[in-house]
C-alpha cells in the first residue's frame, strides 16, 4: 500500500498516516503518536478524542479566559486610547500570542504603547493562527472574534495614533520641560518598577504613573499635581479589572507607580476624577483610603510605602500640616487587618457550609435523615410539637427469609402479628383446670 503522507509536519491533524492505519487495525482506539496539548500541558496519545474529554475542556476554558483577560485589560484599553511609547520602557511591554506562539515586542513601535501587539492581532496571520488553534483544541469557532482585532477597529486605532502624533508634535515644547524632571524620578524608581514587573503579569496595563504623581515635593506646580492625580484616578477603575475582585476602594496613588512596569507620562487633559487644587489636599490622597487588594499588591506597595514615607518626611512635615507617616501607615494596617478578618470569617463560614453539604446524598437513608434533621431543628426551636410515633412503628427491616421489598416484609410481619394476637386471645379462655380422675376411680364411684 503506497504511503500517502503529504504533511509529515502536521501529524497533529486527523490521522491519515500509514503508521496510524496500522495501529488502528490492531486496536481500534489507541493512537500511538504522542502529541502535546497546549491547554492541558500534557502529552497524550489519544488523538482527536482528547479535545472532548472534560478535563481538557476545563483546561481549555481557563487557558482561553486568561489570554482573553490579558487582551481585555491591556490591549483593549490602548485600542481606545493610544498613547506614545517611551523607548526605554518598550522592553517591558510585550505580549505572547498563544495562538501564533510568538512574543510580540515593542522594540520598534513608533506608535503608542503596544502598537506591535495591536498590529499583530489585527493581521491575517493571527486570524489564521486563531482558526487553527480553535480547530485543533476544540474551542468553538464562534469565539474567534474575541481573540483578534477587527479591521474597522484597527483603522480607528490608527487614526487615533495619527492624531496623537500630530498633537505631540504641536505640544512638544511643553512636554520637554516636564520630561527631564520625570526622568530623574524615573531613574530612581526604575528598580522598583522592574521588581514589581516580575510580580505582576500584565505589565501592559499601564497607565503608569509618572513619578511626578508619587513624589510630594513642595515645588510641584498645581498643574502637575492635577495631571498626576487625574492619571491616578484613571488607573483606579482599571485595577478593578486586574484585581482579584475583593472589595476595592479608590486605590491609593502611592501604590501605583512602582506597581506597573512602564512609566510614561502624558500631558493630556485630565480625564476623570477630581482635581486637587493644592498640594496639601493632594497629600490627603496619600493617606491610605483604599483597601489592599491582595498579597501580590500589598507586597508591591509595602516597599513603595516605606520609600514614600521617607519622601513625605522630607516633603510634608509638621509645619506644613501633613499627617505623620506612622499615622497613615497605621491606618492602612488597621484597614488591612479588618479586611483580613472579614475575609477569614467569610472563608471559614464557607468552609463550614462546604463541609456539611458534602455528605454523600446517595447514602443510605439520606432523605430520611434530612427530614429528621429538620424535624429535630424545629423541635429544638419549639415550633413543632413532638408527636410520638405510634406504638406500631417499625423500622425498615429486611427479614431473613424475605422475598420482595422491605415494605412487604413489614406488612407481612404486621399481618402475622395480628394472627398471633388472635391465637393468644383464644388460648386464654380454657384456663380452668380439673383434677385428674382415673377410670378405675370413676368406675368405682359409679359401681358403688
Amino acid at each position, binding site marked *: 500500500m503506497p504511503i500517502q503522507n503529504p504533511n509529515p509536519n502536521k501529524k497533529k491533524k486527523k490521522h491519515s498516516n500509514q503508521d496510524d492505519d496500522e495501529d488502528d487495525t490492531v486496536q481500534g482506539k489507541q493512537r500511538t503518536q504522542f502529541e502535546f496539548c497546549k491547554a492541558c500541558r500534557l502529552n497524550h496519545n489519544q488523538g482527536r478524542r482528547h479535545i472532548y474529554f472534560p478535563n481538557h475542556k476545563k483546561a481549555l476554558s481557563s487557558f482561553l479566559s486568561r489570554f482573553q483577560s490579558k487582551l481585555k485589560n491591556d490591549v483593549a484599553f490602548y485600542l481606545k486610547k493610544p498613547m506614545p511609547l517611551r523607548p526605554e520602557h518598550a522592553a517591558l511591554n510585550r505580549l505572547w500570542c498563544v495562538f501564533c506562539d510568538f512574543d510580540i515586542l515593542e522594540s520598534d513601535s513608533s506608535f503608542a504603547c503596544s502598537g506591535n501587539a495591536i498590529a499583530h492581532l489585527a493581521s491575517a496571520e493571527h486570524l489564521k493562527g486563531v482558526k487553527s488553534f480553535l480547530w485543533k483544541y476544540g474551542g468553538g469557532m464562534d469565539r474567534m472574534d474575541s481573540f483578534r482585532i477587527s479591521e474597522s477597529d484597527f483603522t480607528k486605532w490608527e487614526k487615533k495614533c495619527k492624531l496623537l502624533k500630530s498633537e505631540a508634535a504641536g505640544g512638544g515644547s511643553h512636554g520637554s520641560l516636564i520630561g527631564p524632571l520625570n526622568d530623574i524620578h524615573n531613574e530612581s524608581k526604575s528598580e522598583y518598577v522592574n521588581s514589581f514587573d516580575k510580580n505582576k503579569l500584565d505589565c501592559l496595563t499601564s497607565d503608569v504613573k509618572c513619578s511626578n504623581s508619587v513624589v510630594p515635593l513642595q515645588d510641584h506646580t498645581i498643574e502637575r499635581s492635577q495631571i498626576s492625580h487625574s492619571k491616578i484616578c484613571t488607573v483606579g477603575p482599571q485595577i478593578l479589572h486586574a484585581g482579584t475582585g475583593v472589595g476595592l476602594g479608590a486605590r491609593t496613588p502611592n501604590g501605583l507607580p512602582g506597581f506597573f512596569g512602564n512609566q510614561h507620562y502624558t500631558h493630556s487633559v485630565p480625564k476623570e476624577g477630581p482635581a486637587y487644587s493644592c498640594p496639601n489636599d493632594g497629600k490627603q490622597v496619600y493617606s491610605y483610603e483604599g483597601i489592599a487588594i491582595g498579597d501580590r499588591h500589598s507586597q508591591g506597595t509595602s516597599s513603595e510605602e516605606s520609600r514614600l514615607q521617607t519622601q513625605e518626611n522630607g516633603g510634608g512635615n509638621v509645619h506644613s500640616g501633613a499627617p505623620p507617616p506612622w499615622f497613615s501607615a497605621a491606618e492602612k494596617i488597621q484597614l488591612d487587618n479588618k479586611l483580613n478578618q472579614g475575609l477569614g470569617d467569610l472563608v471559614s463560614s464557607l468552609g463550614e457550609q462546604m463541609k456539611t453539604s458534602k455528605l454523600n446524598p446517595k447514602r443510605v*437513608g439520606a432523605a430520611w*435523615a434530612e427530614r429528621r434533621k429538620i424535624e*429535630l431543628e424545629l423541635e429544638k426551636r419549639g415550633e413543632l410539637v413532638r408527636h410520638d410515633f405510634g406504638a406500631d412503628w417499625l*423500622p425498615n427491616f429486611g427479614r431473613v427469609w424475605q422475598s420482595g421489598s*422491605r415494605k412487604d416484609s413489614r406488612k407481612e*410481619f404486621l399481618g402475622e*402479628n395480628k394472627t398471633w394476637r388472635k391465637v393468644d386471645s383464644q388460648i386464654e379462655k380454657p384456663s380452668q383446670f380439673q383434677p385428674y380422675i382415673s377410670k378405675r376411680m370413676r368406675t368405682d364411684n359409679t359401681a358403688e
Partner: protein
Amino acid sequence: MNYLLTTLTKKQEVDSMIRDTIDKVLVLCFGRASDSIFLQLDEILYKSVREVSKFATVALVDIDSDDVQVYIKYFDITLIPSTVFFFNAHHMKMDCGSADHTKWVGTFLRKQDFVDVVEAIYRGAMKGKLIVTCPLPPDRIPKFQLLYKDV
C-alpha cells in the same frame, strides 16, 4: 448492672434510639444479661464504643422485657446474642458467609474485629449500599446453625 452499656427495655426507647441516630451506624445488641457470651460481647463493646463514637452508637436491648418482644419477632431473633445494624433508620445487612445476613450472631473475638465490622457497615452505608460484605476472615466469625422457617 452498671457494667453494661445503655440497655433499652421498652419499644418506645428502641424507637427513639433508631429515629434519633442520624448519619451514624446504630448497633443494637439483643441478649440476656445472664448469658456469658452476651457479657463478653458487652465487654468488647464497652471498650470500643468510644473509638467508634464518631460514626456509631451502641445500645443493648434486653430480650426478656415484654415490650420489645415485637422487635424480637420482627427481627427474627432466635439465637443470642444477636446484633442488628441500622443506618438512618434503615436496616443494614452484612454477608458474613452464613445464611443469615440480617444480623450478626454471637460475640466478637477482638475489639478490632468489632471496629472493622462497624467500619465496613459505615462505608457501605455512606455509599448507599444496604448490604455489605464482612471484612473478617471466616475463622473469626462465630458459626451457628440457622433454624429453618416453620421448623
